[in-house]
């Protein structure tokens, strides 16, 4: 049995002031936090021993009212102001203040977390399903005080993780590695689905308050925004979450005066963190919902208010580098209207609502459009967060070896990368192998999130293959080429802007329409259809892109329809209940790309469904209900109550 006192100073400290203990000792920070490990050759006997162990502790009250927090709970705070806020509010004809809330969600990744650690003399090898092998190695070196070069991390195959495996695997790997060192034996830790569901990271809960002032036409004059993100007991990426939310909170709108206060709040619940588009989902949902509210106040169509406030070429918020081109709003909007039949449906649902405001006749439907973007911004604040590298070698037998730490994860990605390499070098796709570098720290890699890492790696593979192709008929094989992304130039960012932000760099635009029906017996919202029009430059492999976007679209819809995860009430039975839409309830999903064969660099698109769908879903729900519940998700019972009260 290994407890905290058996480990000298072990704590995952990076980015988190007080550190994250490998095992809890004095204080247990959340229900399910590990106190120690019982080691043995037979998992069944270990389970029996663990079941017979007794822990005496005083219980704390759960912090349910987390929105009123004390200063000791603030883990990270960001604040910025731009323009003369008071003067603009004074000049405003309409002032509107609302709070928008997002719940906790499970990532529903395919396999529970686990790690296998083994020491050979002073060298440590770790097998682990992680999205960020480099970070895991850094953490282990820090925790175990061994040089990074003595640690090899073998990332194992994963399903889609939705950012649930960014940092938590580091904790489990540290537990396994420490136990392996003490016991002198290889140690494997594997969570059951139930343990994973109940006690590991989820999407953070948020509350975003927006106070806006606008002129008589509906033009934004001032925005006063407070973002609260509940990160649970621990989250080493809290600052990243805040920055991503802050940089997305103004959406695609321009405003001459803005004040933002953003807080990452600690509470005594399970660790809460990133999901899909890190903090951007929370932010887009809030600003889009607010723009809809504004449209209602002006009795205007939402698209009209949005178009009126949209950023133009050269404009930006907070003095960041401006847009190099106008937002392709008109084109995206036109195509979206066409494929979704939006104008006709919107008008007829409005009519139905007017005729039958209490929804007594049984048809309650809504449709909404939203426009959002994904930038190439990456984990700029974390050490190594935006560095990716690959090494490619073409051998004498015309086999290509692509070495990258990021290569392990996903088959569809590898298929896409293979296709590109095979086309450039005119070799067969099945002659291309992906390998882990033997010396993992020589080829660093940032996190493999939905599409941030993958588009950068794609560009690097393209670059290295072209370089090999150039040399190929002048030099003898084998020929190798290495490439890595350049670290972000933070000195180019204006003073008032947060470090690492680069608004609108390699941006992908997306318009999304969602149509929703509400079951009037149960109140459950049923997504009927999703349409997406995407302008993201060249799409390397349209089929792969479509498959991945459809999958993400369904996950994003599940965020809107699932039950809010309640760490105190949840049980195993809840796991599959919310894990996504069942085959039998599939909505229609149509996705179109604007000029996908253009000769531009590939840009990330994987987060677009998470950025745009919750906002569009929520707006469609408000149209259907004729009410504005200001929170996602909404349970059927809550919707029924809203309808009854209306």
């Amino acid at each position, binding site marked *: 049995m290994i407890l905290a006192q058996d480990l000298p100073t072990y704590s995952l400290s990076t980015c988190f002031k007080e550190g994250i203990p490998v095992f809890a000792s004095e204080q247990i920070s959340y229900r399910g936090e590990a106190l120690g490990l019982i080691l043995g050759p037979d998992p069944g006997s270990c389970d029996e021993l663990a079941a017979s162990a007794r822990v005496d502790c005083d219980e704390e009250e759960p912090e349910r009212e987390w929105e009123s927090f004390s200063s000791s709970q603030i883990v990270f705070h960001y604040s910025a102001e731009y323009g003369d806020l008071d003067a603009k509010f004074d000049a405003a004809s309409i002032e509107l203040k609302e709070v928008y809330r997002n719940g906790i969600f499970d990532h529903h990744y*395919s396999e529970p977390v686990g790690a296998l650690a083994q020491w050979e003399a002073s060298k440590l090898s770790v097998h682990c399903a992680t999205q960020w092998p480099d970070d895991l190695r850094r953490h282990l070196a820090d925790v175990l005080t061994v040089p990074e070069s003595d640690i090899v991390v073998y990332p194992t195959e994963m399903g*889609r993780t939705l950012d649930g495996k960014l940092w938590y695997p580091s904790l489990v790997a540290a537990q396994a590695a420490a136990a392996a060192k003490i016991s002198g034996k290889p140690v494997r830790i594997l969570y059951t*689905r139930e343990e994973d569901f109940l006690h590991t990271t989820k999407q953070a809960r948020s509350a975003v308050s927006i106070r806006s002032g606008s002129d008589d036409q509906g033009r934004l004059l001032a925005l006063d925004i407070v973002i609260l993100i509940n990160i649970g007991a621990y989250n080493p990426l809290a600052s990243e979450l805040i920055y991503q939310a802050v940089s997305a909170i103004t959406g695609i709108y321009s405003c001459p005066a803005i004040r933002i206060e953003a807080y990452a709040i600690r509470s005594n619940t399970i660790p809460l963190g990133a999901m899909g588009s890190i903090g951007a989902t929370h932010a887009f949902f809030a600003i889009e919902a607010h723009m809809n509210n504004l449209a209602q106040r002006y009795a205007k169509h939402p698209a009209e208010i949005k178009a009126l406030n949209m950023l133009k070429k050269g404009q930006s918020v907070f003095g960041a580098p401006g847009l190099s081109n106008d937002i392709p709003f008109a084109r995206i909007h036109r195509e979206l209207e066409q494929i979704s039949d939006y104008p006709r449906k919107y008008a007829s649902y409005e009519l139905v609502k007017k005729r039958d405001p209490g929804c007594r006749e049984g048809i309650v439907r809504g449709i909404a459009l939203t426009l959002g973007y994904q930038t190439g911004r990456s984990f700029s604040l974390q050490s190594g967060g935006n560095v990716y590298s690959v090494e490619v070698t073409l051998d004498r037998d015309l086999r290509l070896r692509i070495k990258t730490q990021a290569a392990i994860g996903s088959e569809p990605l590898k298929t896409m990368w293979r296709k590109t390499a095979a086309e450039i070098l005119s070799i067969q796709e099945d002659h291309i192998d992906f390998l882990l570098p033997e010396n993992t720290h020589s080829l660093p890699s940032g996190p493999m999130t939905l599409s941030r890492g993958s588009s950068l790696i794609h560009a690097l593979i393209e670059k290295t293959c072209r370089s090999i192709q150039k040399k190929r008929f002048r030099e003898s094989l084998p020929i190798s080429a290495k490439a890595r992304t350049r670290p972000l130039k933070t000195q180019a960012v204006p003073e008032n802007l947060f470090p690492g932000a680069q608004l609108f760099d390699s941006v992908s635009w997306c318009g999304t329409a969602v149509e929703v029906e509400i079951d009037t017996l149960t109140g459950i919202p049923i997504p009927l259809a999703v349409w997406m029009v995407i302008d993201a430059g060249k799409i390397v492999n349209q089929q792969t892109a479509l498959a991945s976007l459809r999958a993400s679209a369904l996950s994003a819809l599940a965020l809107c329809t699932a039950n809010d995860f309640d760490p105190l009430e949840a049980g195993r039975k809840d*796991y599959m209940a919310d894990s996504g839409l069942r085959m039998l309830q599939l909505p229609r999903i149509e996705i179109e790309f604007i000029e996908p064969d253009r000769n531009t660099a590939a840009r990330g698109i994987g987060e677009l469904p998470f950025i745009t769908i919750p906002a569009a879903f929520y707006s469609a729900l408000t149209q259907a209900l004729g009410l504005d519940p200001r929170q996602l998700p909404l349970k059927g019972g809550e919707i029924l109550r809203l309808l009854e009260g209306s």
Partner: protein
Amino acid sequence: MIIDVTVNGVQRHLKSRSGDRLVDMLRKELRLSSLNADCLQGRCGKCLVFMDGRIVHSCLIPAFKARGGTILTFEEIAKNPEVNDIEKAFHATHTQPCPFCHTAKTMVIFDLLSRVPLPSEEDIVEALDMVSCPCGDPIGLIQTVKLAAELRNKRKFNREA
């Protein structure tokens, strides 16, 4: 207790504790890695096996119910040429499942095509509902099944011809 059961064509006498599910017994006693005990609710499909010819979630079956029965797992099913067709279809439609549900999706499609060689979209949707996958592309998966059916029928037809 000891359960006598035929697994993948071999007669076995497997140890099981009271309360064990079929999936636990098969994993523990035979170390069959194609099976996973994951949701334990008959939803994720990662524990699918054929029991006396019918595809079932082995997490929902008490181990003792398998007594005298015949179990086929992916290890055996993978020997069929149909699995090759399915594999090709996964590749062609870019819907390769993750390693954790790969066997489950293959088994479900295998079962469907052996019952209904030309399945309708409703047949496909109903069959795939046995594997609840929160991360795949279900629309692409429907195309996969159609393509697998086509490949299978072509192969069989050519052979017969």
